């Protein structure tokens, strides 16, 4: 029979080890995705804030409708608030797509074939909707 204190000690050591295993096992993909998502939102918020600063400093009016995909580059070159605002929104919409792409890459790196296949289908669906949006 083992003393309760020893048992408790063993159990807590087991838990610590398990927790460490959880963290290291899934660390790479999770950290990458977390950064992608965070960065996407931050860049989008930054672009939107910049657009409003431009508008307040007299760079042009805040637009009523979003700029078409194709017109965004020329608006950006002319430094209009409409261009930056639309770019911010497009960056935000593309953030989840980028995260799917990033997961696909990391699954491929781990040679996890079924999951590469699964994320490939998801990415294809997203491309279809992008094409539907453009067309």
């Amino acid at each position: 029979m083992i003393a309760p204190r020893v048992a408790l000690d063993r159990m807590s050591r087991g838990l610590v080890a398990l927790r460490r295993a959880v963290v290291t096992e899934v660390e790479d993909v999770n950290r990458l995705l977390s950064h992608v998502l965070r960065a996407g939102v931050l860049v989008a918020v930054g672009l939107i804030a910049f657009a409003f600063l431009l508008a307040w400093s007299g760079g042009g009016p805040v637009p009523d409708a979003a700029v078409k995909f194709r017109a965004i580059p020329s608006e950006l070159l002319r430094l209009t608030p409409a261009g930056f605002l639309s770019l911010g929104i497009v960056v935000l919409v593309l953030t989840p797509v980028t995260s799917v792409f990033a997961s696909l890459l990391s699954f491929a790196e781990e040679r996890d074939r079924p999951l590469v296949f699964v994320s490939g289908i998801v990415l294809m669906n997203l491309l279809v909707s992008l094409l539907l949006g453009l067309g």
Partner: protein
Amino acid sequence: MTPVEQLVLLAVASFLAGVAGSYLGVGGGIFLVPFMTLVLGVDLQVAIATSLIGVIATSSGAASIYVRDRLANLRLGMFLEIATTAGAIGGAVLAVHLDPRVLFFTFAVVVAYTAVFMSRRRETAKDRAYRAGPEARLSERLALSSIYFDHEDEGVYRYRVDRPMAGFVVSGFAGWLSGLLGIGGGFVKVPAINVIMGVPMKPAIATSNLMIGVTAAASAFIYYSRGFVSPTFAAMVVVGVFTGTNLGTRLLLRAKAERIRFAFAAFLAILAVLMGLRAFDVGVSL
């Protein structure tokens, strides 16, 4: 209402939608669309398009935390995203000829039932843990079952994913709704993952949050190119929601599963009442 007041109100509402959305695993479109149409008097299509942007912001903001803390199940999320994105495209492209009242009535019944079910079921540490018995073939093949660390009792839990195909079909339906109504569809996904697939509440919410952004992106492209997104409104929504998710995710990590489950059940109950009213043409827009 002056335009500035309108924008400030929208930012505050988005903040609340961000808190609730990240805490409940829903995108928040279900709050934002009615708020914009009823309170601010915005066109329905503009409201839907703008709310989709907000849904993506909620999802990305919340998921970045949940993914970092290994609460979201990436593999399960990716598997179900096949269904949600395909459904979203279907909902945005195919016009379905269905009396909306039938839709709302069906919904009210399903949602009310889920609310009762969720409020009555308990989630103790024992329920959370891995249950013995054979795993579904597909879950095993894709290694969907996972582990997570629960801050509530400082425990690491291993859980199993049951009935993957049933969850897949229901997720497809959630995606279809997302394309059709411009919402994230979290109120369908969370019960599907939690009740049907047997995943504990916190990972279910985190995974739903991760999926919502991908689903909403599929429909957002289509709405954006049709010119329905109002940039000014979208800007307010994004900034509000972003601040809100920072609070909501923090709340969820520390919360008791029991309390989240209760909050979710209450949310579903209110939704059921609103949808029921809508089915009988009592003017609540949703």
